[in-house]
């Protein structure tokens, strides 16, 4: 009996691979996957410039941009402008993060706070911070404070929205648990609320970081006398596309780097999570 059933069993086992199971997750992570897209763009740009398919006056070749960047570094202009820009962006970002988190906590933990704060912030969200620029210039002049405030206004909204959302989606079962183990309000915030809202906050931070560089571009092209945006604006007057591209590449690299930085923090801080991507 056994000998007659075994071949049948084996055949069935051999047939199973034929039934292909569709995998629903995105699969294993690709090594250096984040670099593939940008590199591809660079390759297309290089080929286009080398073959003359891209006009030099319209878009300088990558190697021209590199040598221009070299010159700008050699005479110190790039560093000093980058330093000024970074200071503005970091200051605006830092203040925006603090403001966003504080507002999210007030509005997330108290109904009154939500009633007072959430509406105005949603209205602010509907107004692009760049549309506020004329008003800000009238109020604050064209100095550094106007620039920092513009960045801050662009930054705090995504931080607020995502942190607030993270707070509000904390499972009420954990609130119940906190009650049964007798956590104080402070411990509740420290042990449950803040870690629970952290994924939301970090998502908001990713938007905020790129938003900070975005606002920077605009404020630096209006009445600035230093910064990457100013350097590009000056280059426009003289028709130097290569310097403009250096600026663009710099903005792009800064945005990309800061996003990668936040994602690194995300991976470290949220290592307790098992998600689709891990």
């Amino acid at each position, binding site marked *: 009996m056994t000998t007659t059933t075994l071949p049948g069993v084996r055949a069935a086992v051999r047939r199973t691979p034929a039934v292909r199971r569709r995998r629903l997750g995105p699969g294993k992570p690709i090594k250096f996957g984040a670099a593939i897209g940008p590199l591809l763009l660079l390759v297309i740009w290089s080929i286009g410039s080398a073959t003359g398919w891209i006009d030099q006056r319209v878009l300088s070749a990558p190697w021209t941009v590199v040598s221009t960047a070299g010159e700008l570094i050699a005479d110190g202009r790039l560093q000093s402008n980058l330093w000024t820009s970074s200071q503005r962006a970091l200051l605006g970002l830092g203040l925006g993060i603090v403001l966003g988190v504080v507002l999210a906590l007030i509005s997330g933990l108290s109904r009154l706070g939500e009633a007072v704060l959430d509406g105005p912030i949603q209205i602010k969200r509907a107004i692009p911070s760049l549309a506020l620029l004329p008003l800000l210039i009238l109020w604050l002049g064209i100095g550094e404070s106007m620039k920092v405030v513009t960045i801050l206004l662009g930054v705090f909204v995504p931080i607020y929205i995502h942190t607030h959302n993270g707070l509000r989606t904390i499972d009420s*079962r*954990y609130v*119940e*648990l*906190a*009650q*049964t*183990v*007798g*956590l*104080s309000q402070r*411990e509740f915030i420290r*042990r*449950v609320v803040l*870690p*629970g809202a*952290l994924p939301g906050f970090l998502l908001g931070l990713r938007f905020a970081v790129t938003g900070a560089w975005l606002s920077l571009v605009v404020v630096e092209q209006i009445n600035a006398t230093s910064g990457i945006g100013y350097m590009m604006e000056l280059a426009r007057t003289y028709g130097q596309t290569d310097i403009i591209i250096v600026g663009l590449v710099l903005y792009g690299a800064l945005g990309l780097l800061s996003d990668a930085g936040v994602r690194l923090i995300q991976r470290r801080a*949220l*290592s*307790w*999570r*098992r998600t689709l991507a891990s």
Partner: protein
Amino acid sequence: MAPYAGLVTVQVRDLVRKYDDRAVLDGVDLEIAPGEFVALLGKSGSGKSTLLRALAGLDPEVVGSGELVVPQQVSVVFQDSRLLPWARVLDNVVLGLRGSEQRGRESLAEVGLAGREDAWPNELSGGEQQRVALARSLVREPELLLADEPFGALDALTRLKMHALLRKLCAAHQPAVLLVTHDVDEAIVLADRVIVLDAGRLVAEEVISLGLERSAVDPEFAAVRARLLDALGVTL
């Protein structure tokens, strides 16, 4: 009831709880003595969880009346382990207790999880998570342990192991226990006394005098089970 006569840890008198004018608990009287293990049986919607939540003080917004005396130290074990996913196992056990890491470690060792202090809750199996939840409850040395179908989500084999563990822990720590369950055998195996709730009222009570080794093939066990099933409205 004799060994506990005169002492009470929990006293409930004429407890009424209403949702939208519908009485979920309709005049419940209950006493639990120190160290007594009471199992509460009932169909879905009979008010079991409502009674437990009332004892745990988790229903401040629910309309009701009645007298309720519970001790200072009450611990709750929920059906889900309810571990904070962002806190490591040891931090979950000592949540809200200051400077009690050592006690937390001992408690984890008691439930057989020594060495897993730094694991994330997600890395543990369902049974292990529920053992952490038990450790979290017992490290607080509760006078009353409330358990709301704590093994309901576990597979049958794990559940048997958890029964043995819970009996061992209760023998060591001597809390009064109210275990909500819908598993009649579980109730008989674990409890000193089984009570049955139906439509918001206690309708039956069985004092279990089967000794420590309780076997479902024991005719006495079968008799108790038949009476409890009858009280639950199940006819075989």
